[in-house]
C-alpha cells in the first residue's frame, strides 16, 4: 500500500549540478529534491529548464552515457546512481517515453511485455504470471496476440507501460505521457496511473505541460527553471502562487479563477482541483 510520509525517500537528489561536455552553461545547478514512496509528482517547467537532464540523471544515462561535469549525487532506493550499473537501475526505475513507438518492437503484445522479464532471466512460469497480471491491470488482455504496430496510440502506450510495470519498478517516470492522446484516452491513462499508485504502491514522476489532466491525482508539483528547482508544493500551493506563471506554467483555469477570487477577498472555503469541485463550492448557499 502507498504510504505517504517523511520516511527515507525513494529518490533523493542531493546538491546535483551537471554541465554537458562542451556546453557553456550548466544544465542543472544545485538541485535538491526528495520523492517519497507512493507519491505522484508532476515535474513541470518550460522547455529547456532541465527536466529532461534531471530524468537522465535519475535513470543513470547521466553520468554513465553522457560525459560532463557532475557534482552532488542521486540516491534511488539506497543505491547511488553514479555507482550503480545501468542494468540494475533499469529494474528499479521504469521509463515511459513520449512516443511509445520507440519502445515497443516485438511481434505480439505479450512478447513485448515479456521482453524486459526475459532479460531479467525470470523462470517461464513467473514470466507468464506477471504478463497476465499486468495485462489484467491495464485491461489489455484482448490485445495479447496482436502485433503492436497495429494498435492505436493509446493502446501502444498501455502496452509500453505494461512492459514497465511487469518489471515491478519502485519508481516510474512518464515523459509527457498524454501528448499524443485524445482527451478521453488521456484521462483514462491518468486514472490508470492513479490505480497503479494505489494498488501497487508505485511512485510516479510525470513530466507534463497540460497540468489540468494531472492535478486531480498529483500529490506534488515540482517546478524547474534554468536548471534549478524553483518551487514545490501541492498542486494548489504551486498553481495559486503568482510566481508559477513566471516559470512558464500553464495555470489551469480553475486555479486562476480560485486565486483571482481570493485576491478580491472572496476566497472559497476549499480549493478546487477540478471544474466540478469548483462548481460545488460556488453552488453552495
Amino acid at each position: 500500500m502507498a504510504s505517504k510520509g517523511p520516511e527515507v525517500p525513494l529518490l533523493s537528489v542531493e546538491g546535483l549540478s551537471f554541465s554537458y561536455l562542451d556546453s557553456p552553461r550548466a544544465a542543472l545547478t544545485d538541485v535538491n529534491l526528495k520523492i517519497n514512496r507512493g507519491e505522484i509528482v508532476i515535474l513541470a517547467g518550460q522547455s529547456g529548464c532541465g527536466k529532461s537532464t534531471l530524468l537522465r540523471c535519475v535513470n543513470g544515462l547521466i553520468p554513465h552515457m553522457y560525459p560532463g561535469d557532475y557534482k552532488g549525487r542521486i540516491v534511488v532506493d539506497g543505491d547511488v546512481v553514479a555507482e550503480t550499473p545501468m542494468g540494475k537501475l533499469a529494474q528499479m526505475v521504469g521509463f515511459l517515453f513520449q512516443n511509445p513507438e520507440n519502445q515497443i518492437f516485438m511481434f505480439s503484445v505479450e512478447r513485448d511485455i515479456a521482453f524486459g522479464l526475459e532479460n531479467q532471466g525470470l523462470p517461464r512460469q513467473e514470466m507468464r504470471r506477471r504478463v497476465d497480471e499486468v495485462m489484467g491491470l491495464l485491461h489489455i488482455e484482448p490485445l495479447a496476440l496482436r502485433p503492436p504496430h497495429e494498435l492505436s496510440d493509446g493502446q501502444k502506450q498501455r502496452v509500453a507501460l505494461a512492459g514497465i510495470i511487469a518489471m515491478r519498478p519502485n519508481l516510474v517516470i512518464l515523459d509527457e505521457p498524454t501528448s499524443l492522446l485524445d482527451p478521453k484516452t488521456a484521462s483514462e491513462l491518468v486514472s490508470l496511473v492513479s490505480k497503479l499508485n494505489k494498488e501497487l504502491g508505485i511512485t510516479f514522476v510525470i513530466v507534463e505541460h497540460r497540468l489540468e489532466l494531472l492535478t486531480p491525482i498529483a500529490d506534488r508539483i515540482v517546478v524547474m527553471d534554468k536548471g534549478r528547482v524553483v518551487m514545490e508544493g501541492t498542486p494548489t500551493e504551486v498553481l495559486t502562487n503568482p510566481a508559477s506563471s513566471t516559470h512558464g506554467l500553464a495555470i489551469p483555469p480553475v486555479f486562476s479563477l480560485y486565486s483571482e477570487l481570493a485576491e478580491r477577498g472572496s476566497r472559497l472555503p476549499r480549493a478546487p482541483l477540478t471544474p466540478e469541485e469548483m462548481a460545488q463550492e460556488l453552488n453552495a448557499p
Partner: protein
Amino acid sequence: MTFVHQNGVKALDGVSLTIEKHELVGIVGENGAGKTTLVRHINGLLRPTSGSVLIDGADARGTSVAKLSRKIGIAFQNPDHQLFSESVEHEITFALKNFGFDDALIEQRLNWALDFFGLKEYHKSSPLILSGGEKKRLTLASILAWDPEVVVLDEPTVGQDAIQKAKLLEIARTLHSAGKTIIIVSHDVEFLWSLQPRLVVMKRGRVVEDGPCAVVMQERELLEDARVSQPQLVALYESLSRRPASPFQDVSQALSWVSGERR
C-alpha cells in the same frame, strides 16, 4: 469524399466539408478518427479514393503537390517526418529557395522566423540536436517563412510549454487577422477554447459535428462519444446551478460573473 488505405482500412468515410477563405477551423476527435488523413488531402499528399478535393475551385488532382504547397503549408504532428536539413537555417530557407524567393527576402524571412520562434542560438545547429518542442517550432518556422495562404497545423501544442503555447495562440490569431485561412488539428481543448475557432468534430472517418466552438463544446454527449473532453471553463459553466446565457470565454469573464453572484 472517401479515403481507403492500401490495407483496406477506410480512414475517411463520406466526408463533406467546405472551408472558406479567412476561416479559422479547429478539428477534434479521437486518435484514428481521420483528422490527419483529412488534412493530408488538402495539399495533395493523399488523393481521395472517391469524391474530390477542390482548392480555390480547382480539383486538387490536377495540381502538383509542389504547386499546392506554395499556397498551403502543413506543419505535421511528428517533426521527425518533416525535418531533413543539415542545419536549422537550411531547414527554414529550403522551401524559400525552391519557390525562387530572392536572397534579400530569404534573409529577412529567415531572421524573422529564427527570432519569432526562439531558434536564433541554434541557426547553425543540426535539427537533430533540438528538443521535441524546438523541432516542432522549427517545422512551424519553416512553413510560415514562405507565407502560405492556408496554414494547417497538426497538433501544434504537443510538447510546448505555456510560453510557447501563448506564442502559438498569438501566431494563429495574427495570421488569421492578416487574412490567412487557418486549420488546426488538436487534442488540446484548452488551446482551442482560447482560440474559439469553427469546430469540426470527427469520429471514425466521418464529420459528426461542425459549428462554433462555444456551441459545439457544450454538446457533452456528442463530445463524449467522439472522445473529446470539455474545456475546464465549459465544464465549470455546465456544473453551475445559476449561470449566464453562454459559457465563459476566459478566466476574467468567469471572474466577473462569479464575483457579481457572490456580492
